[in-house]
């Protein structure tokens, strides 16, 4: 079961329970001109659900390509079960040293560069919000979707697992954006928010972003992007303000 985000991008949403609050650990399926492309492969924790969902969505064929935002286990743990270790499935990763990241057979994408995968153009963006250094944000030139890996996430309540941002009463709740980034991008306690904002402005000026697709949050629709970014900016300020060097 997938959730449509844009005409050719579908969300395979999986959740991890934090004592009643949920965190998405998702992946996305793109229907490109020459085949299907997965962005990330999800966690081993959801392996059965993910392989079943991909099987159903691809009519039993599986993906034609897998593009990884980075090699962290919640993102890259199902490469083999989804065929990414075979010649039939093209595997693309941004790591500079695939063998050290456990992905010795990956085709390398350069951060700052572009690749055509299954007939679809993707750009690989140096992310201002990430944890691991080898992370890339992935921009899909087809539908204008920006896949933001660990950035732009949020927690959510049970029952909101399949929500797009517009399904919330007033877009993605500010508190959920704050709590997610506080817990998962710990370095934000030292952030100078205006520096991140400048880089985000540059990215959104260069790329026509029509939806943001985080791995750890509800997808953000075009109409809600400004609201989300305002809340993200407030969250960064709050996280920094709340941490004082003892």
């Amino acid at each position, binding site marked *: 079961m997938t959730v449509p985000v844009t005409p050719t991008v579908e969300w395979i949403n999986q959740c*991890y329970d*934090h004592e009643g609050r949920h965190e998405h650990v998702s992946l996305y399926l793109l229907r490109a001109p020459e085949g299907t492309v997965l962005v990330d492969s999800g966690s081993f924790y959801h392996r059965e659900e993910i392989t079943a969902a991909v099987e159903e969505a691809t009519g039993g064929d599986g993906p034609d390509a897998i593009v990884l935002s980075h090699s962290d*286990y919640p993102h890259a743990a199902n490469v083999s079960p989804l065929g990414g270790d075979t010649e039939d499935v093209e595997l693309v990763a941004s790591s500079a040293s695939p*063998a050290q990241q456990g992905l010795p057979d990956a085709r390398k994408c350069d951060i700052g560069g572009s690749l055509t995968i299954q007939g679809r153009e993707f750009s690989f963006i*140096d992310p201002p919000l*990430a944890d*691991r*250094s080898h992370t890339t944000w992935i921009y899909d030139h087809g539908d204008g979707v920006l896949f933001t890996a660990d950035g732009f996430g949020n927690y959510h309540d049970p029952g909101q697992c399949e929500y797009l941002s517009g399904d919330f009463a007033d877009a993605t709740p500010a508190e959920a954006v704050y709590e997610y980034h506080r817990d998962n991008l710990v370095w934000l306690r030292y952030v100078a928010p205006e*520096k991140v904002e400048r880089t985000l402005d540059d990215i959104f000026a260069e790329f026509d972003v029509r939806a943001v697709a985080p791995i750890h949050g509800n997808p953000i629709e075009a109409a809600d992007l400004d609201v989300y970014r305002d809340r993200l900016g407030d969250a960064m300020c709050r996280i920094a303000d709340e941490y004082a060097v003892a």
Partner: protein
Amino acid sequence: MPREIVPGIHWIYEAGPDRTESWDLADRNPDWYEPGREAYVPQCAYLVDGGEETLLFDTLSPASTEEILTAIDELVGERGLDYLAVSHPDVPHAGNTLAILEEHPETTLVAPGYGNDHELYHLDDGIHVTEGDEIDLGDRVVEFHEATFLDAPVSVWMTERETETLFPVDWMGFIHLDEEKLAFVDELDGEFDPSRLVEFHGRVLFWYQYIDVEKTNAEIDRLVEKFDPEIVAPAHGLVIREDATDYMETMKDVTRTIDGQERIGTLG
């Protein structure tokens, strides 16, 4: 082949790929670089032998599975490995966890108590350690600490009390030339060039470009006061066994330098 830093603490080294071309070192030719040489940012694991019990801190990457298993055998022999402590679940640090536990079923897994995604990393089993937790190995006692400068939220730092060694994981890493593998910093030719630290932190702890300089440097002052180590053993650099706190102080200049220049580049 591991190198003993002080009696009972062994340094296990993995070079990783040559960074010369991808970091344009030949073109930029920084002061510390010698044309024609290869340059590396290693992965390091450390084995602490306390006489009674043994502990391995980190695992090297999946590219070095055989090497880390061989090193463990060489260092602990028939005594076995008592503890495997994983600093954080990043693949180059924890990528051989399952292989080591399969080879050494007697080993107790020690994982960070910080963060909230342990099941997603196979780290829900074993001991979870946070600030001040200790493991007594006999002649050596290791103590765990909240990781200050980190990438994954599920992270922990470690110290060894007797030798006053700080293991700051990703922090204080730096690039080095090929023949400097497993050399102590005090064994390098000439004066240590802090731009080596800038090359690493400007790319690998990429978020240094987005931080408040004064706040971050106040944190470094706090770390110097808190730990005051004799030895610094980073996961991605060479071991510092002389003037360790001076090198920690140097990190404040690294912060300022990264703040004052254009983006250095990516890891690639």
